[in-house]
């Protein structure tokens, strides 16, 4: 019982502290802005630990964070192998191929308004469909190894990136394009020097959406068949053995990998689109 009340008390105290801190003038400082959500996250973990211990929740229903952490440290080689198989081989290669193909397609259809008018509604429509469902088909075609996962990722990321890139290439206004024309810039010159840079905020918007989709595609595709490693494989087999601490460890790895992947793309975006108002305002 002491665990339960301790955790609840700690939670209330931390919440009161956060509420007090948020209304102080120092709440505008960057460090405090990071500290408040961090404290909230830690509180949730402690509340979780306290509830599991205090109420004696069996570990086949919800393992405590400490048990999950033990699994992470104990099974690091397994987790690393799964990470390499799913994220580095499956998701990342598929992400690069898919985004590259979408980008090149967008530039290829850029000169044809006819194709754009046809492809954009279709692309928007496809982007809303449950494309994950294509996973069993691609697993049949490309085998159980990472190639089929990469193929699923390619299909999943293609349309969001395509739609965003096409929208971005249309983002310059008439006056800017006329300016390029008065300099007698060729199509390629105005594409490289004006329209592609102007499209970058849109392109990166698509790339950021695609990071999450890539991880989801790679993990879910493994539910349909995989070699004996990979995060999706480990999750589905560990669930079957009721070793939920292993499942949570994989989910923690997936969460960290997903945030890191997103953060990396956001960082590149910051470097490429430093001129855009949304980036300047933050500094």
């Amino acid at each position, binding site marked *: 019982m002491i665990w339960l009340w301790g955790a609840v008390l700690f939670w209330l105290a931390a*919440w009161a502290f*956060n*509420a007090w*801190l*948020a*209304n102080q003038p120092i*709440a505008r400082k960057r460090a405090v*802005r990071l500290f*408040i*959500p961090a*404290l*909230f*996250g830690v509180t949730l973990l402690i509340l979780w630990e306290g509830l599991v211990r205090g109420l004696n929740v069996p570990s*086949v*229903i*919800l393992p405590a964070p400490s048990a999950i952490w033990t699994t992470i440290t104990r099974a690091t080689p397994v987790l690393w192998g799964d990470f390499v198989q799913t994220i580095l081989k499956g998701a990342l290669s598929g992400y690069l191929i898919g985004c590259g193909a979408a980008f090149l397609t967008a530039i290829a259809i850029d000169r044809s308004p*006819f*194709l754009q*008018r*046809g*492809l954009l*509604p*279709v692309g928007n*429509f496809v982007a*809303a*469909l*449950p494309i*994950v*469902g*294509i996973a*069993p*088909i691609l697993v*049949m*075609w490309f085998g159980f190894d990472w190639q089929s996962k990469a193929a699923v990722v390619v299909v999943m990321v293609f349309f969001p990136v395509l739609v965003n890139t096409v929208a971005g290439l249309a983002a310059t206004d008439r006056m800017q394009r006329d300016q390029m024309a008065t300099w007698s810039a060729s199509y390629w010159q105005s594409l490289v020097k004006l329209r592609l840079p102007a499209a970058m905020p849109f392109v990166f918007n698509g790339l950021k959406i695609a*990071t*999450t989709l890539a*991880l*989801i595609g790679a*993990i*879910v595709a493994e*539910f*349909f*068949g995989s070699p004996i490693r990979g*995060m*999706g494989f480990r*999750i*589905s087999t560990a*669930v*079957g053995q*009721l070793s*939920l601490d292993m*499942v*949570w460890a*994989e*989910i923690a790895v*997936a*969460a960290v990998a*997903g*945030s890191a*992947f997103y953060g990396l793309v956001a960082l590149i975006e910051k470097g490429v689109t430093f001129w855009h108002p949304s980036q300047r305002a933050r500094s």
Partner: protein
Amino acid sequence: MRSVLPILTVLLAIVAIWYAAAVRLNSQWTHDQAARAGVEVSFGEVVSDTLRQERPVLPAPHQVAAGLWEGLAGQRLTSKRSLVYHGWVTLSATLVGFVIGTGLGVLLAVGIVHNRAMDMSVMPWAIASQTIPILAIAPMVIVVFASLGVTGLLPKAVISAYLSFFPVVVGMVKGLRSPGAMQLDLLKTYNASGGATLWKLRLPASMPYLFASLKVSVAASLVGAIVGELPAGASAGLGARLLSGSYYGQTIQIWAALFAAAILAAGLVIIIGAVERGTLRRMGMGR
């Protein structure tokens, strides 16, 4: 309406590419069969054979359409082979999850907008959670609920709710914050309470944002329900159709289930779009 012709062209091109790919991918099997029987096959025979195989690598569009029609209209509605039955199983979980997720999302967004501490502590996590492949927890949710003795619709609805929750929170916070300082000041001069401000200014102003995120979240909750049917040998639902099709190599069944899911998703998004247009027009915000 002037984009009808381009869209039709693109769709026709897709169908043409599909047929070509079907002939190419399935011809291997035809050639193997012919070699085993010791007969030569002409090109015309290869083409006609690849388009009507029992278990093709890639079913041709007309085979998928036939499979879809067979599943939708050719069965009794309660039959285990009817796609209407499986679609309903998936749709009911999707809708329950969607309603729960949207409701909780709106409530949390209201809390975030009114409470500074909540804004600063919860909002970064809500945004960060969008970068996490949440779908990975689906098998675990199913099994944990099963070990608690709860099976059927509820576990899938929980996954759906979870997936549709965060887009609504992020969109609604943006929407509830969208009234300008001048409008908020006006309500202050009327001595409006917080509740009245929420009810008469913030909620109406957030409607366009709400509908934009509803479209995202209904698609996400359908994906959640389908993936929720994959593990633990679920016997009904579009996800179960996908899985059993992939076990037994029934490619036509997979494609038919896939298209049923696509039709379902498109239908849900179109319904929300129609509600959006109607609501916004009555509120005087329609285009």
